[in-house]
């Protein structure tokens, strides 16, 4: 990688100001950024080290407001936290399925949610792809077994985060600060399909930072699961992942939130599946229909057609596991 200046963040305000300057980037765990710097995809002149913002390292929980995760909380801390394990198991499952123990000890939740796609054309300096400001998506007509089956337009990369689908299923929000903004948005709103003018996968602009992730208290009788299909047993991004969170009254589903990873440029909310489920009593046939609905409109490329049945199977399985676990109670 090229040389750069490394400065410690003093407080949020000055950090935002620093990050608004040209050729300046934030670094926390560095597990994503360092890969880009080593591949020379980007060569910022200055890195602002967020790890000195100790306030952003806290995990807080109260039954009334729910879970508050500072942006610098590591995946390892989330995975091991007793309250997360007990109250938000799908978050613990998602965190523990990500990467490797070494990477989870370095990687932060804020960085995980804002990470860049793993598309092998995007990550390779030899390809000036559309997402990097070029003219074409090399995956469209190239090697695309890892690429998107849903909602792709100019870019076929998928969002790689394991935590994002889990947090969306948990209805999480994020606190964002920037030179011109400060506020709380739903995590789902953070993500955006890259467009001609905004070739990024989040709405964050220069100098804008996530400071906290907020998860509301779990609903009554809430159950969920995070399932992830990988090419091998560990240390892999999801081919497809599913986060499902459901609430039940008796046999009737009162609430359902389902989000998929690995299928689209954004964590993919399966709203039609949710609509089919809510108000119904669970059955295998219903799970089948909900699974079908999750991939409705899929447009696979040459090599990624397998993701369609895989996503369906995982959605169905996630629903069945959620229900079964409830009946086990």
């Amino acid at each position, binding site marked *: 990688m090229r040389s750069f200046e490394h400065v410690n963040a003093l407080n949020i305000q000055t950090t935002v100001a620093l990050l608004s300057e040209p050729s300046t980037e934030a670094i926390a765990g560095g597990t994503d950024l360092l890969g880009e710097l080593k591949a020379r995809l980007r060569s910022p002149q200055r890195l602002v080290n967020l790890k000195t913002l100790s306030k952003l390292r806290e995990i807080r929980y109260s039954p009334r407001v729910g879970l508050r995760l500072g942006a610098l909380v590591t995946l390892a801390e989330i995975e091991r936290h007793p309250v997360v394990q007990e109250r938000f198991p799908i978050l613990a499952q998602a965190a523990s399925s990500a990467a490797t123990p070494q990477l989870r000890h370095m990687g932060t939740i804020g960085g995980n949610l804002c990470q860049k796609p793993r598309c092998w054309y995007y990550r390779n300096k*030899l390809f000036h792809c559309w997402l990097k400001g070029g003219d074409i998506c090399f995956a469209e007509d190239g090697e695309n077994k890892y690429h998107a089956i849903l909602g792709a337009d100019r870019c076929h990369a998928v969002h790689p985060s394991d935590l994002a689908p889990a947090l969306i299923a948990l209805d999480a929000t994020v606190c964002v600060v920037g030179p011109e903004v400060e506020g709380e948005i739903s995590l789902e709103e953070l993500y955006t399909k890259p467009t001609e003018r905004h070739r990024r996968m989040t709405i964050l602009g220069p100098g804008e930072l996530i400071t906290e992730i907020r998860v509301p208290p779990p609903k009554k009788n809430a159950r969920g699961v995070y399932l992830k299909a990988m090419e091998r047993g560990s240390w892999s991004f999801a081919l497809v992942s599913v986060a499902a969170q459901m609430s039940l009254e008796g046999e009737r589903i009162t609430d359902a939130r389902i989000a998929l990873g690995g299928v689209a440029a954004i964590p993919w909310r399966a709203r039609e599946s949710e609509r089919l489920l809510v108000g119904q009593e669970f059955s295998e046939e219903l799970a089948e229909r909900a699974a079908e609905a999750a991939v409705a409109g899929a447009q696979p490329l040459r090599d990624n057609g397998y993701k369609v049945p895989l996503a369906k199977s995982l959605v169905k399985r996630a629903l069945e596991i959620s229900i079964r676990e409830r009946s086990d109670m």
Partner: protein
Amino acid sequence: MPKVIKTRTEFEGHVFEEYVVVEGEGLSAWDAQTPLRYIGRQIPRTDGPERVTGKAVYTFDVQLPGMLYGKILRSPHPHARIKSINTQRAERLPGVRAVLSFKNAPKLSFRQGQTFLFDEIVRYVGDEVACVIADEEEIAEDALELIEVEYERLPFVLDPEEALRPEAPNVQPSGNLLNGKPDIYERGDLDRGFSQADLIVERTFRTQCALHNCLETHGSVALWEGDALTVWDSTQHIFGVRAGLAQLLGLPLHKVRVIKRYMGGGFGSKNGLGKYTVIAALGAKATGRPVKIMLDRHEENLAAGNRPSTIQHLKVGARRDGTLTALELKAIVNAGAFCTWPPSVGGPARQLYLCPNVKTEQYTVFTNTGPLSAFRAPGYVEGTFALESLMDELAHELKIDPLELRLKNYAEIDQTTGRPYSTKGLREAYERGAKLFGWKALTSNPSPVAHLRERGGAVGERATKLRGVGMASQIWSGNGMPPAYAIVKINPDGTATVVTGTQDIGTGTKTVLAQIAAEELGFPIEKISVEIGDTQLGLYAPLSAGSMTVASVGPAVRLAAHEARQQLLDVAAQVLEVPRESLAICDGLLSSPALKEAVAIKDVLEKLENFMIIGRGAREPNPEDVAVNTFGAQFAEVTVDTETGEVKVERIVAVHDSGRVINPLTLSSQIEGGIIQGLGYALFEQRVVDRNTGVVVNDNLENYKLPTALDIPEIVFEMVDRPDHRANNLGAKGVGEPPIIPTAAAIANAVANALGIRIYELPLTREKILKALKRV
């Protein structure tokens, strides 16, 4: 007196006749009555502590005063002519000491004339274009971006079948087929054989390109002192590198020293001289300072070799009772841009089963992709997958148990030479393996090919998993060969030093040689040191490949130790004034009925000032009347999730015959490592080349999927452990490659058994499983 002998040897499926010079008296392998203190014992690695505490200096760790770093500029195009190259901006960058390219470097022929060190034509993405030598690696990398190269892009071809078409662009001037013709082997009468068959099964199999991904990447450090060159190299053959450097640089052999102390794996990819080594030597010459060039992971996966992809058309004929009548293989191998050592994909078809009528035909094809190299049992892993898959299909068609079919066609002689095998423990391996695995119980009900449904599975009462079992067999050389030389020095204090020019590539060679010397000398192993990996101080030993290090170098070490022991006995008898034949050496002590108590060797030798005992040993020739091979069988049990396509290998049972076991600990690393590497090949590993640009898109450990701890099944293994007295004076044969050979075939057979459908292409990904189940 040295004897000159003409010998016929097999190496990785190729047979050679060559002269060798041997010396020393013959020793036979220890018999069952000889009590052995070190051979066959679990001796921990003698260099284990320095390896695991980070003190071991690998090539990567070599730091010399004033050392510079080299980084190589590689072609971004699969086929192009360099029209112009301008290095001025790079040279002006502070910290840059030299930039080498075809413009200023000598035009050195490489890979048997298929390319030059810096060629004006680049033939794959990753081919060497230039090299920057700078004070720091980062500066060298910065400078690479400042080199201006104008390429004239040429038409390219990536697919070997397309490359064989007449209209395909030529990768090499002589055409895309290596040697202009296929490599053909024939015995018997194929047409007659097929006409005698009651059943003919014909299938096409495809195997992927696999990358070695040695933990330590390829690289060298070069240092000139006057007109003498020293190179630290991560290599499997220090003497080969010395010969190559001397020839290319016009140096006499005594002015080239190649050192390799510790190494993080090679698997065949470090068998020969690399361009980076020559470039480091030229860079060090040009700058007057030592130069280090280590490839990074990305370069490693572009330019450091691979197991080539194959397409194998296999046709087998058999009688109703399973007797093979004919076997035909037509194989296409994607060599990449260069090839001097084609793998022998037809080896298993020629050797594994008794069959009078056999033809193998191999087309080794140049394409504009990264060049192949040897990779742990080259050709045999690929060939065994196809052959053993086809044997299972034949068994299925004939309704014969797959193991029965193999026993039915058991070969007692090597059909390629007509010689009997020195020993062949494959029958024991089958029987013992089947017992350990529970083969009979798992395959007898309800049909020869069992589909055992997992009840329950992951989800409620719905059965989502299928369970299957499969097996496969293995033949490989592993015989070892001359020449290999060693000396054993006995020091005045009763310690001994083994000196030879082999290299420990991570397999435990050093420990095994210490065991052999300790056993023969009668010394405690703590009193033995082993000095290897240095061409200047060592004696010639062959490359550490072909599973031949122990079987080649070990016998020479034993002979050297034996001769040293004879000399020790000679002087001890005279000093102690006892009859020579009454003396024995055990645990470093001399004893004799004529002595009141045992005497330490030190006490004898110290009387003789600094008298130095030096024993010499040379590897004896291989026997001419028998074939020396290694064998084995593996059994696999898998579960397949029919909804998600996930294949989980539940367990592997392996039984191998590699003659005598010298060290069960280092052996277990080889067996387990081979099986794990075979599992990766069966399920995950695959180089992906972008079809439109020729770029390897998974040139990293993120997307090139090696197995992780969670993918590794229960592994149970046993050795037949029968010394091969004809093989050499140890009775030991190689074990580095045998365990990887049958693994993928056994797993593929188990998956086919689970699904009731065969997948003819590796790796067995979720995509292929879901397609086979018609879910895609």
